């Protein structure tokens, strides 16, 4: 069960810097650990995170095995216009987890 959580302000003034917080449940298995039988546990992480604002990419991050499980990320962007923010987390296994949030800019 992968569950993303998003927090953005519902409203903002045009030109305001807004903080966006994200959290997603994920094991972020590094690929360096071994199980009790000595076998390497295969790497399983989210390797890319992107955020687009009305279709335009405003933030992107490449993640690596050292990122902790259940990664929390907060970043800032400029409130330019009302619309929709779209968040995507891309998993090693090819899955893409998505979330969306609306913002009203006055």
């Amino acid at each position, binding site marked *: 069960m992968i*569950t993303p959580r998003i927090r953005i302000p519902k409203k903002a003034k045009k030109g305001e810097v807004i903080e966006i*917080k994200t*959290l997603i449940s994920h*094991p972020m298995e590094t690929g360096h650990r071994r199980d009790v039988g000595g076998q390497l546990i295969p790497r399983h992480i989210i390797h890319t995170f992107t955020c687009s604002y009305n279709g335009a990419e405003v933030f992107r991050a490449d993640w690596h095995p050292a990122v902790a*499980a*259940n990664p929390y990320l907060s970043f800032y962007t400029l409130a330019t216009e009302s619309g929709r923010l779209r968040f995507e987390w891309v998993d090693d296994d090819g899955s893409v987890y998505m979330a969306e949030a609306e913002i009203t800019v006055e």
Partner: protein
Amino acid sequence: VNGDGTSGARGQHVGVLALVVAVATAWAGIGLLLAGEPIRYIVDGRRSGYTYLSEENQRLQDDDFANPGLLWVEKGQELWRQAEGATGGSCMSCHGDATESMRGVRTRYPRFDSRRGKLINLEQQINRCRAEHMQAGPYSDESEALLALTAFVGFQSRGMPINVSIDGPAQPFFEAGRAFFFRRRGQLDLACLHCHDQYAGQRLRGDVISQGQINGFPIYRLTWQTLGSAHRMFAWCNTSVRAEPYASGSEEYVNLELYLAWRGRGLPVETPAIRR
């Protein structure tokens, strides 16, 4: 604004007073719950693990968005409503709104159960409800589902003081739990008492030893990077003194859980707490 021209000055006084109170409470180990009610993390010398956390980790616990334990609480909320088993019921079919029916429940567990003739903890109570009322199979110990539902139920008592019953039929089990706490074990020949009572607050290598209070369980433990039960923590501790751990849900650990709950009586439920 009062018309007597004193509101400004009074406002200043209130401001200064508020600041003094804030500083004093922070110093006395009293924090603020998000609802605005004060939480006492130190009760008569009994210190929640919260007071041993760094400021950053305390903030992580206090922030209901950033605290990863809330991911399990959310999952638990879904499971609460999810119908399963032969009767087609869910937790909600019997218990309704958890914010009301489950409020305070976590503070009373483990408790004596007359039908079993021994103690029952919250995890076991959940599995018994599933068996008897839903005719669904039990969740396995430390499974994501059991942790999620336990966290969700515990979350409804957040901030309420731990208040278990240790007299009457629970007494022999309480005594057994206490004996466990005082008994030396493992190759290091240590009892719980030695670290978590006699040396609590002192350093063990890079870390400060806590009192070993269990008011925040299930906890999101940074070492584990996941949620874990009190029994998982007991097993971790036992292994650390190179003793053979007991199984999650074993009678030894449920008895110990009752003793520790009593030992931390009055401490607030912090489920899901952040711990190192």
